[in-house]
């Protein structure tokens, strides 16, 4: 590591109505340094990045770039200075080719000669071990390949500070190690990297230094390789929040659900189809489905909830084929769903918590002869709030006013109180603070111990390994075999996530 200082932030303050997103943050990144920016959701990481990249202007504070104080007015200026950023949600155009996407962010004279641009894309991508064909359409690329396009787009513009926002959350373990090799090589050549993450083990293996944020302030600087993940987590969440759940062993019972030959063809030419999914779920167990986003997770959830009914194959719940039943009919049979989008699918943002309870729990005696029994609805809603520790002022709060973690606790509580036989939860702790995530994990385990089957769809491998009895992965709408968590190493799971398995095998065969 060299001693030259590339970027120095002093006392950055950014205030939004009602909250101080950044409250006097100092940060120093040296040339060639890989610097981690850690913190929970809402700690102020994204605000700080937007300040550096010129998306927003700080209310106070100084930005010093290569020794000179600067003002970054917009992203275009940041790019001219040599700051590149890869957003968590890619800003790529699916209907354009790789080269066209890159050409759009280059100055016109550099983009004019398409053959030379193609050549440069090939050179840069090969040099850093990220093979890319400039002529392919982005719509045909996997998520990992799309990320490469974003990174190559930054590198082609001679970037000296690369900001990566949670880059590993969309990658398989193997893709993560390729990415890390690329980043290390860049760092050796003098490019500084600001690596935003909440995955502590990754940060420990990759980053030279780390800055931890909590509630808009710096709660500590450290060299992550030298201290334990637990200590870093403490810096992130403070002293009084539990960091993880102790999960007791499960005692799976009889088979509850049998899925045989489930298939569904997507009408969207860029969408994912399900093909020949076979899966058994037992009472009292949690089964995890890993996979990179967009590989059929949402489709599988919809096929189970009844939002998709046009497929082939059977879904048998306790001997009854439910594949052709509507969502409300399935709910009556004890199927509960916690979708990925909390606002919009899990809950209606502008409706009160009580009204949101009515949406799925109307079968719990909340409706009589077609009329809503509002007293019962309120009672049910208050019960959820009390039992699941939802922080709000009461059942009249709108769903949209709750934080992600609290709303998720409410949604899971609402489903759990209906004593479901099968609960399908998709990314239940995505974007949720650590305290709420622990509470959500505890609710899932409690439900399991009461005899429910739980299907947990997640991209968070730590979560899957911690909670699940058996694990499998979805890739391109196909389900891998399932294996007991204790016998499945992460390399094997990574291969499954990349699609390296025999298709159509009955998924419980390995168990």
């Amino acid at each position, binding site marked *: 590591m060299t001693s030259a200082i590339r970027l120095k932030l002093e006392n950055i303050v950014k205030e939004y109505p009602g909250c101080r997103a950044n409250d006097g943050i100092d940060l120093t990144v040296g040339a060639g340094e890989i610097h981690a920016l850690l913190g929970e959701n809402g700690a102020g990481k994204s605000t700080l990045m937007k300040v550096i990249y010129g998306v927003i202007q700080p209310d106070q504070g100084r930005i010093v770039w290569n020794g000179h104080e600067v003002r970054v007015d*917009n992203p275009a200026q940041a790019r001219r200075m040599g700051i590149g950023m890869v957003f968590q949600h890619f800003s790529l*155009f*699916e*209907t354009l080719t790789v080269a066209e996407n890159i050409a759009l*962010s280059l100055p016109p004279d550099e*983009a004019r000669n398409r053959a030379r641009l193609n050549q440069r894309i090939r050179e840069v991508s090969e040099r850093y071990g990220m093979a890319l064909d400039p002529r392919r359409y982005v*719509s045909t690329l996997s998520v990992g390949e799309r990320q490469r396009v974003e990174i190559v787009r930054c590198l082609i513009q001679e970037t000296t500070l690369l900001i990566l926002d949670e880059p590993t959350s969309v990658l398989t373990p193997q893709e993560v190690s390729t990415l890390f090799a690329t980043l290390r090589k860049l760092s050796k050549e003098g490019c500084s990297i600001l690596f935003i993450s909440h995955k502590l083990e990754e940060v420990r293996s990759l980053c030279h230094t780390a800055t931890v944020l909590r509630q808009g302030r710096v709660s500590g600087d450290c060299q992550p390789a030298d201290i334990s993940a637990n200590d870093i987590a403490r810096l992130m969440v403070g002293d009084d929040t539990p960091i993880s759940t102790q999960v007791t062993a499960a005692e799976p019972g009889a088979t509850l659900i049998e899925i045989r030959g489930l298939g569904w063809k997507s009408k969207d030419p*860029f969408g994912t189809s399900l093909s020949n999914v076979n899966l058994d779920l037992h009472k009292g167990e949690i089964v995890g489905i890993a996979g990179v986003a967009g590989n059929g997770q949402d489709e599988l959830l919809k096929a189970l909830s009844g939002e998709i009914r046009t497929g082939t194959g059977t879904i048998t719940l306790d001997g009854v084929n439910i594949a052709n039943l509507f969502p409300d009919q399935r709910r009556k049979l004890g199927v509960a769903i916690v979708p990925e989008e909390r606002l919009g699918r899990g809950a209606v943002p502008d409706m009160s918590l009580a009204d949101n309870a009515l949406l799925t729990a109307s079968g719990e005696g909340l409706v009589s002869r077609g009329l809503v029994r509002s007293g019962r609805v309120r009672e049910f809603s208050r019960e959820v709030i009390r039992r699941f520790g939802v922080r709000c002022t009461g059942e009249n709060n709108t769903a949209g006013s709750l934080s992600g973690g609290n709303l998720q606790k409410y949604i899971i509580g609402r489903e759990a109180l209906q004593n479901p036989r099968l609960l399908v939860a998709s990314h239940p702790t995505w974007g949720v603070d650590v305290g709420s995530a622990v509470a959500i994990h505890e609710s899932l385990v409690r439900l399991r111990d009461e005899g429910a089957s739980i299907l947990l769809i997640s991209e968070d491998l730590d979560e899957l390994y911690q909670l699940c009895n058996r694990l499998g992965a979805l890739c391109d709408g196909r389900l891998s075999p399932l294996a007991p968590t204790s016998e499945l190493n992460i390399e094997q799971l990574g291969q499954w996530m990349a699609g390296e398995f025999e298709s159509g095998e009955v998924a419980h065969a390995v168990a």
Partner: protein
Amino acid sequence: MELIVNVLAATVVAGTPLLLVALGELICERSGVLNLGQEGMMLMGAVAGFAAALSSGSLLVGVVAAIVAGIGMSLLFAFMAVTLAANQYAAGLALTIFGTGLSAFLGAGFVGSSIEGFSRVAIPLLSDIPVLGRVFFDQDPLVYVSFIAFAGVALFLRYSRAGLLLRAIGEDPEAANANGLQVLLVRYLAVAFGGAMAGLAGAYLSLAYTPLWTENMTAGRGWIALALVVFATWRPERLILGAYLFGAASILHLVLQGLGWKSSTELLAMLPYLVTILMLVLLSWNPARTRLNTPLSLGQPYRPGC
């Protein structure tokens, strides 16, 4: 043989106003803006063109006036739909109703007047090619303008950087903004181009096709152009095919009537619409290719920074 050549030549003439207005709308829609005001803009172009040509005695002045009128109308729309981010459907419909009424009001004094319209100019050498020469290269000057406009739009979309910008903004204005592209400016320019082409198409009707002004003389061509753009899946080469197919079918029904075809006139008058749409539906069977050319953000207002 003589009959066939004449029918084909008439087909090109009948398809030209449709081609002009649809090319403009195609560019406009590729930027993600749906302008349902084509009919209104065409009528304004037709009346402005006719009035200017009649009073100045110059057809060229008429054409320029028509284009200016079309651009003026489209900027009115752009102010509502792009700057104020109003609902594009409502703003476009309002533009058509406004243009229909205003053109009738302005043109009331011109009903019954007539001028010497554009006449045919044979292009040397090219017009001597058998059949094709008469069909494509012995036409009025505005037909040649439509050929150039077609080639320009096709090449612009496929090869130019500005065309790439346009496609990117039509697909995802948010991502385009994150890449530092000027979404609102490009949308304004695209809408204005649509207006210019609609004005020109109107001028073609009142200065070449039938050199006179009558109220509502576009007879729904603006609406057909809108359908044509969608069924051509936003690709210029299909657009030209569709426009001429429509032209052919509308000439055919006159020919069939002339030949004493015993069938209801209304049924025959329906033919062009049916044939055109059926043909283009059959052509757009490949969903992946269609998707590559569809502007995803079509019809959605975009407010930067929201």
